[in-house]
């Protein structure tokens, strides 16, 4: 055996745990740099856009679990964001608990709804699952446009109907715009970390086997039902937290912003951003909120983004199925290899 082979065989004995840790460290470090740069440069308009960018990237991370890990197309993710937002506002106005409690309630309920929305996936894949989940998103659109979001009124729906609409207060430790942006970055950072940990450990491996095929997964001892349910619950939870963070941003939510089209858009941009790298979620969030904000800032119609996104999606599907994040990762590894050769 050559010397290089010996080192290669000796290394893995201690490598895996510390390597996972190193891969996980990328998440908080990147989030911290991003948060500090934006917080120190942005004006109030951009800060608000950046806050929703970061919050939404959490729901994209949920989509990336379903599509990138399990290969399941779910087109109702934005509806789950709405569920999380609704529950957060409802709990917040009814009991006035700390924001974190309302937020967790939103995440948990969205997680259950996500689990229910995932039931078709036990039987369906591909186009059929996409259609069924899109219809669920459509059903949510009808419900939410009839109910609206709670704004401090009486009754189960909590609608104030015009007079005396209340705002959901932001968390006590993050009342200002900058503080709340940093708060959202911290919560999202934790959420992305949880998602990334899942990807790098036992559930992630089980999910990739399910993506290969259910018989393949079963033949490897994977309890397919449990791991699928887990993925849907986690994905729903992340969407729910994203909804809570959005509700906290302006203190209210608008039912018209939660149509089925938003779920479609979210899925398309998740692909453009990249579902196989964790930072693809952040890129998708930027595309979703920062690009329209940029166009508005330049005095153009924000709806132009739909056309731009269509082209971007076509480009991603045709030439870069791992999205922008995948291209960044490939570039980074090329640079690393080039640097390695020079040494």
């Amino acid at each position: 055996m050559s010397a290089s082979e010996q080192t290669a065989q000796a290394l893995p004995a201690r490598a895996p745990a510390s390597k996972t840790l190193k891969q996980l460290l990328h998440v908080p470090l990147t989030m911290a740099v991003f948060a500090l740069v934006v917080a120190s440069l942005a004006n109030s308009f951009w800060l608000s856009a950046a806050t929703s960018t970061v919050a939404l990237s959490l729901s994209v991370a949920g989509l990336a679990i379903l599509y990138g890990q399990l290969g399941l197309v779910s087109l109702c993710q934005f509806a789950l964001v709405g569920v999380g937002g609704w529950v957060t506002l409802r709990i917040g106005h009814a009991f006035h608990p700390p924001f974190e409690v309302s937020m967790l309630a939103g995440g948990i309920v969205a997680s259950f709804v996500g689990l229910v929305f995932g039931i078709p996936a036990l039987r369906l894949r591909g186009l059929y699952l996409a259609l069924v989940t899109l219809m669920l998103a459509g059903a949510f659109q009808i419900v939410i446009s009839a109910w609206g979001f709670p704004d401090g009124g009486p009754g189960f729906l909590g609608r104030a109907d015009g007079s005396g609409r209340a705002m959901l207060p932001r968390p006590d430790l993050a009342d200002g715009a900058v503080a709340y942006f940093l708060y959202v970055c911290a919560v999202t950072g934790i959420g992305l970390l949880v998602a990334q940990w899942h990807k790098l450990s036992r559930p992630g491996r089980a999910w990739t086997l399910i993506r290969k095929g259910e018989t393949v997964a079963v033949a490897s001892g994977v309890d397919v039902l449990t791991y699928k349910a887990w993925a849907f619950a986690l994905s729903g939870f992340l969407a729910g937290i994203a909804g809570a963070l959005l509700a906290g941003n302006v203190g209210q939510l608008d039912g018209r912003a939660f149509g089925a089209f938003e779920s479609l858009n979210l899925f398309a941009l998740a692909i453009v951003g990249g579902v196989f790298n964790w930072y693809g979620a952040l890129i998708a969030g930027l595309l979703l909120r920062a690009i329209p904000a940029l166009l508005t800032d330049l005095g153009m119609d924000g709806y132009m983004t739909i056309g731009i996104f269509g082209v971007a999606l076509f480009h991603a599907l045709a030439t870069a199925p791992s999205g922008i994040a995948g291209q960044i990762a490939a570039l980074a590894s090329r640079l690393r290899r080039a640097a390695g050769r020079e040494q």
Partner: protein
Amino acid sequence: MIVIEDVMVQFGGVRPINGLTATLTAPVAGLIGPNGAGKTTLLNVLSGFVTPVRGNVMLGGQPLLAMTPLQRVRHGLRRSFQTEQVVEDLTVRGNLKAIADHVVAAPDRHEAIDEALTFVGLGALGDRLGQSLNLFERRLVELGKCIIGKPKLILLDEPAAGLTEEEGNTLRELILRVPAEFGAQVLVIDHDVELIRAMCKETIVLDYGKLLAIGPTGTVLAHPDVRRAYLGEL
């Protein structure tokens, strides 16, 4: 030892396996038969993806059919597939870990993976991604997955398909070592009669869901019925 008693599988009006009775005792046994003979169906019966309408299968004295596919895996049943199923975005080590997660107790997982990597000779490729492996390396990963977690019976569905002769020979040598080193019986399903002849002491031949011949490989392959049905001789 696998004991198959009067197993019948029925899909509508078709009986891919029709009253099959056979006992396999060799450490490495072969299963051959022409297309549509019921080989893959038998494999699916053994691994639990197809439920027979009647019959009984015993593995090492324990009834197999009462167990779910998952219970069979935990009980020590392993299988590979005709098309290799290596996950592209997991490393070689990750691919092995994916099964070790479910069949090896946490403290022993690392050791089991190292042992499998060394056995199939992929120790140096542990950190390579599945997508960068060639077919031979992928087949080795598949074999590595099968020997993790104290297997009792390993079903290999055309393990050497698409390999060069040299690669096939290397794989064959490895498979032959499995019973002695891991204590598992191996059942190889293949079209390649030479591979079966070189590898298996005992062979079972199926045709139209029925047992055509069973016994020592040399004798079975010389059987006139087998030559007629499978090798195309008149």
